[in-house]
């Protein structure tokens, strides 16, 4: 239990960010973004702490977290692969990439592989439609991806 607490300690920067934003109206979404930046998702413990610090009901926080696709309340894989399913990428075979990821990783969307290493999700246009279909791993963008490149791309992060 002690370990759990340890895991979600707010850094000093996060705490001062929240304090700064507490003064402003409409701050909740900005604060949750900052929390997710720190933990890669918004763990329950963190949501509770935010509720306390901003003095808003936990129910409201979950209302917001679940409304917006960008927020994650479950821990994603160490590498969360994003497949663009914007229109341009869809037309150029983005759905095929999703299928192939399911095959290769053995999990479906939003699930995490057993070793905790990978998860994947489909996202909307990532803004490089000229490179469609596009797949993003962390900071790295892969353009004009074909199905048979997928195992190779995943192997890079294994």
């Amino acid at each position, binding site marked *: 239990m002690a370990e759990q607490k340890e895991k979600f300690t707010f850094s000093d920067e996060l705490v001062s960010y929240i304090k700064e934003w507490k003064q402003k*109206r*409409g*701050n*909740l*979404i*900005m604060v*949750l*973004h900052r929390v997710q930046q720190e933990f890669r998702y918004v763990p329950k413990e963190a949501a509770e702490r935010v509720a306390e610090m901003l003095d808003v009901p936990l129910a409201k926080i979950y*209302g*917001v977290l679940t*409304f*917006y*696709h*960008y*927020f994650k309340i479950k821990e994603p894989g160490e590498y969360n692969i994003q497949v663009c*399913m*914007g*229109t*341009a*990428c*869809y*037309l*150029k075979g983005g759905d095929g990439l999703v299928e192939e990821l399911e095959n290769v990783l053995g999990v479906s969307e939003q699930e995490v592989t057993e070793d905790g290493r990978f998860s994947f999700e489909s*996202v*909307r*246009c*990532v*803004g*490089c*439609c*000229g*490179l*469609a279909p*596009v797949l993003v791993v962390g900071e790295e*963008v892969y*353009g004009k991806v074909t199905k048979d490149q997928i195992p190779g791309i995943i192997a890079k992060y294994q």
Partner: protein
Amino acid sequence: MALTNYILVCGGTGCESAKADQIYKNLLTAAQASGVGDTVQILKTGCFGFCEQGPIVKILPEDSFYVQVKPEDAEELIKEHIVKGREVKRLLYDKSESKKHARVEDIQFYQKQFRIVLRNCGFINPEDIDEYIAREGYVALERVLGDMSPDDVIQELKKSGLKGRGGAGFPTWLKWNFTKDVEDDEKYIVCNADEGDPGAYMDRSTLEGDPHSVLEAMTIAGYTVGAQMGYIYIRAEYPLAINRLKAAMQQARDYGLLGEDILGTDFSFDIEIRLGAGAFVCGEETALLASLEGNRGMPRPRPPFPAVKGLWNKPTVINNVETWANIPVIILKGGDWFAQIGTEDSKGTKVFALTGKIRNSGLVEVPMGTTLREIIYDIGGGIANDKEFKAVQTGGPSGGVITKEYLDTPIDYKHLQELGSMMGSGGMIVMDEDDCIVDVTKFYLGFTVDESCGKCSPCRVGGRTLYNMLDKITKGEGEIEDIDKMHQIGKAMKKASLCGLGQTAPNPILSTLRYFEKEYLAHIKEKKCPSGKCKELISYYILADKCIGCMACARKCPVAAITGERRKIHRIDQDICIKCGICYETCKFDAIYVG
């Protein structure tokens, strides 16, 4: 030493993701190593628009346009072009050209374009305010604060005929005027940078390539309507644009162009960035305001309109990024100048993200009234891989398709609407013969169903029902009555939905039913998908007269559905085949037939 050359490296998202930053760094290193570090200036700019051919590097004054540059090409560019003055032919866009240079003007992609919104993208370093200022940046703000009354600004906008570029096409001057006329000491300015259309990135590129144009325009609006505070609501998925905006805001504050007492006047105005969180409906203005207030982004009925009752119930001007980017130019060159461009109904230009099955995918800005044919064939270079044009989709999930017969229609708000589509924010997606209309329509409906906020039932239930019907049709389980039902449900949704999302969600269906009813009928009656996309309706066969028995397909088939010996005709067992299409892609002899 004097500068002899400028090297512009594209720093737009497309090129950045193809290692433009490494090219930039390598160019810097190579320039130092070759001793020309002091005579060339190397800049990173915003998107050139020609993303398909990225990463792009342009060298001035020769105006040489290098495409598909790799980090390892940097040294050659410096040693050959800069040091020896010889262009690196193999990297030029048009290598065959006998002319001495492949100048930007020679490239067809740019010939019909006319840049107002993207005037600085690809020309300046967006992270340096001085470069914006050198191209008449902030002159419009200076003029407004120095010589113009709020009514003068409104008059100029009215003359220009500018309409909102975020989708609805509402006259911008009118909106500003509403807010100006409300008596209140607290008003707000909002920039809608939520860019929700899932195949469009005009706003992103504008913000990445020219962030000051939006800041300047919002400040002008603040002065005009009497607001002191502005917000930019931007998708969290746009980190580069966010960082450039932040840097630009700081520089503008340092220069006295934002913040307290702007340009020494007693007018103060500041801007804050607020992040969206991946909900399409938050592009709708009332939902956006709810999200800005920190709540779930649910729309509310209008009226009251945000212009009168907006953020925290205060009068609020909300405009789209592209609308904003037009404003400084209108002030500088005058509303009359702007109104000469375009058509009777629609003035100025429009930026489109031209994507899909097009040869030159990219960002294009054209005068209103340009025809679709000019955009697709002259600018876009036609359909990729010599396929047949099928349709072009505009207006994203709220829009519709336009077919071959209408390619000569001049694009403006009115004409697109007459054709059953709409301008939308500027996504323009080209489809070819391989794309199934029913499948693409299902894609759009799937999107709006996912994104419906669920507040009103016409949208929530109607959308789901429509999606399910399309799904059935793509699986060969459609019934002829479904077509009528879809019409009815679609019409009801348009009437009864609360916000634009639900009101426009049936558009992709209604539009494709209008132009491609035959294709629906083929799915429903004949249980066939003419373009071979819907898996349940197709089978893969091997053509006996073409198969040479090379076994390539059999080796690749993931489920071993293909049998046959070497040099003998192969066969696909339909009971085993999962229709993955790998054999079709593998066969070099066109022996696999999809039907």
